[in-house]
């Protein structure tokens, strides 16, 4: 093999090396992993401490921080720490699911529109233009307040706990895919002219083959960055909706719905408002650090050599 071949390492390895040097990105990733693991272990903490983040205990309302209630208890006597963990479960997984949903839909639509062009493409682009400059939060509120029975869903389903959760994920997906679609479409238009795509097409490879094997894997880099950054925005959107009372409904809880509850108690129990907001802030900062780090690591111009 030539010297050229021996020196080179795979693209992903190079990216990993660059990311490893980015302390902010690593810290963000670590913090995020920690938050996720902690919130997933909420039941373990509850069982161990003999407390509950869900069941009201009117005998221990507004308890101060003790060995049993690490961060005290709230207005219904629920353990604040356990509740924060449960809220984190909701907020973080909605962030992940919503960002993934938007990216998957965006990748599908963007690659299809870029590959087939023509009328499909025109409709998509007009629609994307349409979505931009829409007042996002009011539309989110309307979507969150829609009467789903008018769309043919059963009322049992709507009253079930998971409906609120999935409703938010679907709404965020519906409003969030356009950005990714534009990114992927632009990459697809460029990739469709590349000779390795022509080579596959000359074999008579079907469209799903060309898209799935050659185009999407080569267009995925900006999508990873966009997904990461979108996760932060989804968490903020969910917390805003839950804060306004149209997001996660009790008995389920998220950091946003905890804040909604704490708003009226700001003078008497300020810590109830401080903790969930701080966790939202910390997670979103961590996500943005990671997103920026990935962006820099994936950008070939940032190659130090």
């Amino acid at each position, binding site marked *: 093999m030539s010297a050229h071949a021996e020196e080179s390492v795979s693209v992903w390895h190079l990216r990993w090396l660059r990311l490893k040097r980015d302390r902010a990105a690593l810290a963000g990733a670590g913090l995020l992993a920690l938050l996720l693991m902690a919130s997933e272990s909420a039941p373990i903490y509850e069982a161990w401490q003999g407390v509950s983040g869900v069941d009201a205990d009117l005998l221990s309302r507004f308890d101060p921080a003790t060995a049993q209630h690490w961060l005290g208890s709230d207005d219904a006597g629920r353990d604040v720490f356990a509740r924060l963990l449960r809220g984190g479960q909701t907020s973080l997984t909605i962030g992940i699911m919503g960002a993934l949903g938007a990216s998957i839909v965006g990748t599908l639509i963007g690659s299809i529109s870029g590959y087939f062009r023509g009328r499909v493409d025109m409709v998509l682009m007009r629609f994307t*233009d*349409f979505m*931009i*400059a*829409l*007042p*996002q*939060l*009011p*539309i989110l*509120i*309307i*979507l969150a*307040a*829609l*009467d789903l029975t*008018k*769309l043919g869903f059963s009322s049992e389903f709507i009253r079930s706990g998971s409906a609120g959760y999935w409703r938010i994920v679907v709404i965020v997906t519906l409003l969030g895919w356009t950005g990714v679609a534009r990114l992927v479409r632009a990459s697809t238009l460029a990739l469709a002219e590349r000779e390795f795509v022509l080579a596959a097409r000359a074999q008579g490879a079907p469209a799903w083959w060309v898209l799935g094997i050659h185009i999407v894997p080569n267009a995925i880099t900006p999508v990873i960055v966009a997904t990461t950054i979108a996760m*932060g925005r989804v968490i*903020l959107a969910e*917390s*805003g909706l839950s*804060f*306004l*009372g*149209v997001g996660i409904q009790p008995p389920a809880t998220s950091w*946003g719905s905890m*804040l909604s509850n*704490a*708003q009226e108690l*700001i*003078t008497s129990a*300020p810590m109830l*408002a*401080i903790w*969930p*907001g701080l966790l*939202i*802030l910390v997670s*979103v*900062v961590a*996500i*943005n*650090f990671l997103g920026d780090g990935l962006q820099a690591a994936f950008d070939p111009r940032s190659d130090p050599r």
Partner: protein
Amino acid sequence: MTRFLLSRAAGAFVVLMAKSFVIFALIGLMPGDPVDLLMNANPDATPEDIAHLRQLYGVDTPIFERYWHWLTAAVHGDFGFSRLQHRPVWDIVIPALGNTIVLTATAFTIATVIAITLGTIAALKRGTWIERAIGLLAYTGISIPAFWLGLMLIYLFAVILGWLPAGGMPRPEEGIRGIFSHLALPVLTLVIVEIGAPTRYARAAMLEVLGQDYIRTARAKGLSSRRLILKHALRNAMIPVVTIIALGMGNLFSGALLTETIFAWRGMGRLILEAIMGNDYNLALVCLLFTTAAILLANILADVAYTKLDPRIGLGGRRK
């Protein structure tokens, strides 16, 4: 110029029509029966009117027909009645729009000035702790939930320190002082939330301009760096920044909605939320349309500003 504005306005009008239809359709899917709610809203409605409107608005009527009826009325200046406030929607929307403009325009101006200043400083002090501190501030702004920030500011300035009111509108007898004290916290909230992205753009734009040849030439010619920055670099760097800020009007409005809710500021954001939560269809519809129109207008203004400020860009929107 006129031709450019006309074509942009025509495009925006088409988009506005499309959006009004989508919003109309979405609101029809909200809880409750729009016909009943509409009837209750109008105190002057006679039984004949009700029968007439039922026929026009009836659930069996296709949505296009209902929309068309609403649209023709709206074009004639009849935006209908608010169900909650039993007043014509128009009389409610105008004062709220005024309040929102006061709040967002103040916040927008302050945020733009601060963002450009911080971005420029960060670019000039590249690699120092100052740049990192500004970066962290920008990150916090992007990442902080607006409503939580408002809550914390209320706790600090109204509850603990007692310096400023926790919310609400200024009363006439409080005079100028009252206006400032009531505006202070909501504006501060919006500024912090909105400052992040434009600061980062300003920094990037400034770095790019500073690296360009003509700046180096000017430096070599002996222009002092302070004059240089103010005269050459700043102006060229700020064109994209101003555009990006103006394009972010939709975002600013989302922030304003949450801020107004927290601080009980009687603006459009709060009105929209109340209208949606109270099933006040007509009010929600008109508010949303006003908002959408305002965002579209801001986008057109951003385009115009962009073309005006940068001589290299023709009004066709393409680089020459």
